């Protein structure tokens, strides 16, 4: 069994690293927004510095209490969530959590959501100001979430039509010089178009996919189990769709693609890399395996050795 950080000669030859807009990801395993908090909770169970990166819980300008009622429902090989972007707000994050992020040795991504156009832009400005003050020691990248299906205003509304999203991406791009990835919705009218637009507006990368809008009905109570009717589907159930979308987008754009959706094994990661992803994110699998990061990394190394792959660049986008 190969240990993480094992410096045996064979292991040392493996190159799992990638750079996106000047940010180094020491391996392609990044924890997905909303499933990993800000990393602290999982840090009690393994060294999160072994990860390629962490995308923090989605932030909005003002703190949000999130949705009432049932927030999670399990489905066949997946789960629906209706958290509704509960979060402490950008300022509270910068004041309280960023000090922890300064101590981390992994790529740190702020996932930024919003209700209104102004929310997003002001949020990005605050993050930029803070980064300037700290000398960028705590945030390496902003991931602009225009795709949350669980908030009524903003969120998904921006993520569906390319023309609605364009102004927003442009304004946020102006508001920050930090590396910027735009997180796309699988519910977009045309996800490749959307990605191309992000590239045109100066985004450094695109992240995809966010959860797919879904539903569950309680037949005895004759109502949706969710107060918001619909909720976001994630987990292995969505992997084929996510993989297809990552492949489509990677073929269309020149900027890196951060791929995710249902990844729950090392070979799932390899599939996304072969479809063209620069790095991947892992969400729901954290709930299936508390030491997901550690186990996936070990599995990925084993796969590379088995298949005689020295660098992930050898297989990136080969399909």
């Amino acid at each position: 069994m190969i240990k993480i950080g094992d410096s045996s000669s064979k292991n040392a030859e493996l190159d799992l690293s990638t750079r996106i807009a000047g940010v180094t990801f020491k391996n392609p395993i990044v924890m997905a927004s909303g499933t990993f908090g800000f990393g602290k909770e999982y840090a009690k169970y393994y060294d999160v510095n072994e990860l390629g990166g962490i995308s923090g819980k989605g932030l909005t300008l003002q703190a949000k209490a999130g949705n009432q009622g049932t927030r999670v429902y399990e489905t066949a090989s997946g789960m629906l969530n209706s958290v509704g972007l509960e979060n402490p707000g950008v300022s509270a994050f910068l004041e309280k959590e960023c000090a922890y992020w300064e101590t981390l040795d992994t790529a740190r991504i702020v996932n930024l959501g919003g209700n209104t156009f102004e929310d997003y832009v002001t949020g990005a400005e605050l993050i930029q100001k803070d980064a300037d003050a700290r000398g960028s020691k705590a945030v390496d990248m902003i991931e602009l979430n225009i795709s949350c299906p669980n908030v009524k205003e903003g969120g998904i509304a921006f993520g569906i039509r390319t023309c609605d999203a364009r102004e927003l991406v442009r304004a946020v791009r102006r508001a920050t010089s930090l590396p910027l990835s735009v997180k796309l919705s699988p519910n977009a009218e045309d996800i490749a178009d959307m990605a191309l637009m992000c590239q045109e507006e100066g985004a450094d990368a695109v992240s995809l996919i966010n959860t797919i809008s879904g539903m569950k009905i309680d037949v005895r109570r004759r109502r949706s189990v969710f107060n918001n009717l619909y909720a976001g589907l994630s987990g292995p159930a969505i992997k084929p769709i996510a993989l297809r979308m990552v492949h489509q987008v990677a073929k269309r754009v020149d900027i890196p693609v951060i791929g995710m959706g249902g990844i729950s094994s090392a070979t799932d990661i390899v599939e996304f890399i072969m479809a063209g992803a620069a790095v991947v994110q892992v969400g729901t699998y954290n709930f299936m395996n508390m030491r997901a990061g550690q186990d996936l990394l070990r599995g990925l190394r084993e796969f590379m050795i088995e298949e005689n792959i020295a660098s992930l660049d050898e297989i990136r986008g080969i399909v």
Partner: protein
Amino acid sequence: MGTVISNERLADNVYHLRVSGDYGGETGQFYMLRAWGAYPVLSRPLSIHQVEDDGIEFLYHVVGEGTELFSQLTPGDSINLEGPFGSGFPAVTGRVALVGGGIGIAPLLYCAREIPGCDVYLGFSREPFRTEEFRPYAAKLTVDVGGLILDNVDFAEYDHIFVCGPHPMLKAAQLKGIAAATSGSPVNVYLSLENRMACGIGACLVCSVSCKDGQRKACADGPVFLAEEVVFHD
């Protein structure tokens, strides 16, 4: 990874699971259990029923796919346990009552053992189970079948009341606690909440509980909450 010592059926759809391994925890805490590979996707939270030197025990009700899979476990099978998680019942002194409804008695046996001289109230809609195990620890043991167990509890008699049971029972306990306090008998009522969970450790926010001071996490700040702090929306 733990090993199943026994998995005994106690009543209709109620099982007592004993797992060997180095598993500890405080009263009211819980574990996330998984007796399968990838599917079902989520692990299932179960309260600590009892901690023994050589392992840990759970008491569970079969309600769906996951607990159905638990019920099929036989001695020697392995099962994945993560935990202990959450903050359980507080350490208290004074007059204490433990009130459990149905499978809600699960976390209370360990409490009874840790709080000698407490009064124990156990309510069941049909067949009672595990009631005799409480007897050695309880100053007074009240078992009720078919009624509302809370009707037997005089809130004015106690300093602390720990409640675990179905949702309507928790809400009723909150109201009785408030009523006792307003009539001059302040009592700390603690509720153990069973919100649906995914991560179990405070990272995903699917288990959020509305409290007077804002949103808290059932898995990390609870599952035990002071009743007066909880805001029930339904």
